[in-house]
């Protein structure tokens, strides 16, 4: 039986990898993937904590909703990235620099 803190550490590491990837990589598609990774870390947290309260399935149900939210967000995000790519011919986030002072 793997203890709950181990899962939390793993979730924290995954979330950290996602956050760092989001901030460091200049490719918007990689940024999208990083966000997915972070949301999966969230799911791991919810499911791991559910073990502490076996009678209530709060963690499991929440994970389902997080999955649905992530899918909806990814769909919209890809569409926006696609529109951005069509107009600017690149998926690098440096190209998003017209709107500034």
């Amino acid at each position, binding site marked *: 039986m793997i203890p709950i803190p181990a899962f939390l550490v793993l979730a924290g590491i995954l979330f950290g990898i996602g956050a760092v990837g989001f901030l460091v990589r200049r490719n918007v598609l990689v940024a999208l993937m990083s966000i997915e990774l972070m949301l999966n870390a969230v799911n791991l947290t919810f499911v791991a904590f559910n073990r502490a309260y076996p009678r209530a399935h709060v963690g499991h149900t929440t994970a389902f909703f997080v999955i649905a*939210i992530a899918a909806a967000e990814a769909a919209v995000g890809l569409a*926006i990235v696609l529109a951005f790519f069509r107009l600017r011919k690149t998926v690098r986030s440096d190209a*998003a620099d017209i709107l500034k002072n």
Partner: protein
Amino acid sequence: MNDLVTLWVPLAVLGLGVLLLLVDVLTPPKKAAQADVGWLVAVGLLVIFGATFLVDVQGVAAYGAYRTGPWALFFQRLFLVAGALAAFGGVEDVQKRTPGRQGEYWLMMLFSLSGMVLVPGAQNLLLVVVAFELMSIPLYVLAAHGKTDPDEASAKGNAAEAAVKLYFVGALSTAFTLFGLGLLTGLTGTTELARIGAAPLQPLAALGLLFVLGGLGYKIGMVPFHMWVPDTYQGARAPFVAFLSVAPKAAGLAVIAGIFAFGMQTQKSLWVGPLGMAAFLSMAIGNLLAVTQSDTRRLLGYSGVAQMGYVLIALATGEEFGLAMVLFFLVAYLFTNLGAFLVVHANAEAGAGFEVDGLAGLSRRAPKLALALACFLLSLAGIPFVVGFWAKLYVLLAAYRAGLVSLVVAGVVLAVIGLFYYLRLLRAAYMTEPTVSRPDERFGGPALGLAIALCVVAVVGLGLFPKPLLDAATRASHDLGVPAAAPHVGAR
């Protein structure tokens, strides 16, 4: 069945959306391109708004996950009015720029609104998250609306860039909020707002709390999470930005109030510090950066960041009186900021662009519009006899009563800086000669005029008679169930 009655406001908005969807799908494209769908939305939302005064429903639904009462109703009315005004303000723009895609625009608007009206009533963190996402995701789509419009700005992909920025910041904030909520609910073992604060807080849960504050702070444009605000405001269509700059922020504050002031009221000493700090930084950075802007939309964006700082002062008190002032401020901000953006939009429609210099000679070119702009700017600056004055005064009063004296001093000093750039806009509109003079300028259509007129009436009317709104805000705040006057908690 009772649940459906209790949930009638979100269901009505959703029903309007589904109705519109079916109309959009069933009418032939050519006919749909000629119709002014926005009128249907605006009138429909106003009808629902009127019905909230006639139907008296209070109670819980969905096993206690949703509760309607004065608190939820206050926010719902705010959202419905914001939606209706944005619909009036946007109907001509949408019809003119994207006639074939009107249905999409208004559908997304209504779905976003249906999420918004769920937010303040949500008593369960799961519902809070889902409703908040239902609100946010359509907003990303709306920001990109009209991206292939043949005008110059869109051809460069400005709307797409605005959407990219709004989306990535929004998605990141969602991840942070969810991770924070995961830690919080995992350690307390419940998702009910009323019970998350009951257990003594472990360090990990405090970290989760900070993540939640950061994630929600993004959505309301709170410093240090404000970077997307000016860019998105500049790139997206102005009537949509008018909506984006008020309604989602109010929803974000409703969630912050629900989680922190209500759910975490016993752990007040934990969050008052970060919230007060964020309030100070928002006021300072928002006001200081707004001074340097040359684009009116960016200027109003930074001014919005500063205004959120003032709301957060009142929220940081965590008391009934302070929350009532939050509500009052939000209503004032709704009419003022929405109106200001619509005026800027109307001026751009006349071909003068969005630069501050583009406002030159507005008092001669369009006296009524200039007068409306003056009302809104004075209200944003907090000059007496318009509603913004009372809003600022009450917020600072609430902070003073709660002992947050340093924040009050900072608020007053920074409001003086705010005067500079608001008066700069006014000077451009009143004291400078028009650079171009064309007698046949058209400042948008009748619906846009109606929306601006309604905002002016509200700003001036509530400025002269703030009492009814104050009473309603007090009742709503009482309904949330936060301490009337919390014991002094060592806040600065």
